[in-house]
């Protein structure tokens, strides 16, 4: 894409539905990167659900967020993702798809990131196929954080190649994990959102 086109894209408003998608990706990334703080919980507790699968998951998450203490979630996060040696879940695409870290799915993701101009911050050593990183990348593609807002074809290709093959499976595991309480709500919301993304992209 030429520079002029890219600038044009940035000046265009992103459609409201797409801003909402980015917002949900950001929420998921935020709570999967680290346990939420009390201020986050207050914000989540104020959310209102509706009768859709996403809305029901939001309502459930809001109820949990209104009751649970940050210290409890810290422990839950630790048991789920850190553990002794490893947590209950290993939230990396490569691990989900191959049973090993640092395998071909990560290499393919890095290739696409380079092509799309997404760079890891220098101080970051975390691998790119962490679920939170992939959610942030989706939000960035939607909103143009990487210099240009990417069109729906690019978003769909990235989603199909890197997110869809494992993210729903991960969110379902998160919902069902032994240690999950708050994160059961996150898993349910993530799974419902992945279904919506899948169906919405299939309409193009």
């Amino acid at each position: 894409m030429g520079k002029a086109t890219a600038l044009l894209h940035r000046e265009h408003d992103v459609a409201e539905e797409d801003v909402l998608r980015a917002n949900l990706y950001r929420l998921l990334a935020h709570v999967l990167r680290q346990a939420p703080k009390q201020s986050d919980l207050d914000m989540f507790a104020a959310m209102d659900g509706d009768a859709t699968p996403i809305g029901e998951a939001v309502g459930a998450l809001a109820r949990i967020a209104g009751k649970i203490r940050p210290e409890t979630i810290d422990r839950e996060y630790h048991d789920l993702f850190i553990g002794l040696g490893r947590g209950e879940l290993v939230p990396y695409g490569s691990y989900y798809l191959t049973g090993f870290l640092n395998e071909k799915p990560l290499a393919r993701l890095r290739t696409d990131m380079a092509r799309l101009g997404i760079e890891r911050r220098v101080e970051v050593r975390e691998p790119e196929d962490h679920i939170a990183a992939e959610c942030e990348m989706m939000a960035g593609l939607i909103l143009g954080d990487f210099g240009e807002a990417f069109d729906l074809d690019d978003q769909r290709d990235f989603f199909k190649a890197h997110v869809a093959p494992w993210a729903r499976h991960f969110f379902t595991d998160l919902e069902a994990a032994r240690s999950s309480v708050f994160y059961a709500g996150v898993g349910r919301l993530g799974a419902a959102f992945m279904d919506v993304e899948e169906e919405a992209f299939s309409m193009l």
Partner: protein
Amino acid sequence: MSAKRDGANDARRDFLKLAGLAAVTGGALTASGKSAAASEIPVEGATGYRETDHVKTYYKLARF
């Protein structure tokens, strides 16, 4: 975008409008009192990776 493509995207947008996505921001917006923007959800940076505990776990696992 072609007219056909515009139509497909209209259908997609209609589908998304009914998907309950607004439930997520609704609360976030009420809490922050701001207009819809992705920055409602605090992030550490655009691709804000940090060395957190799960990164340390990753390195432990990666040595297997």
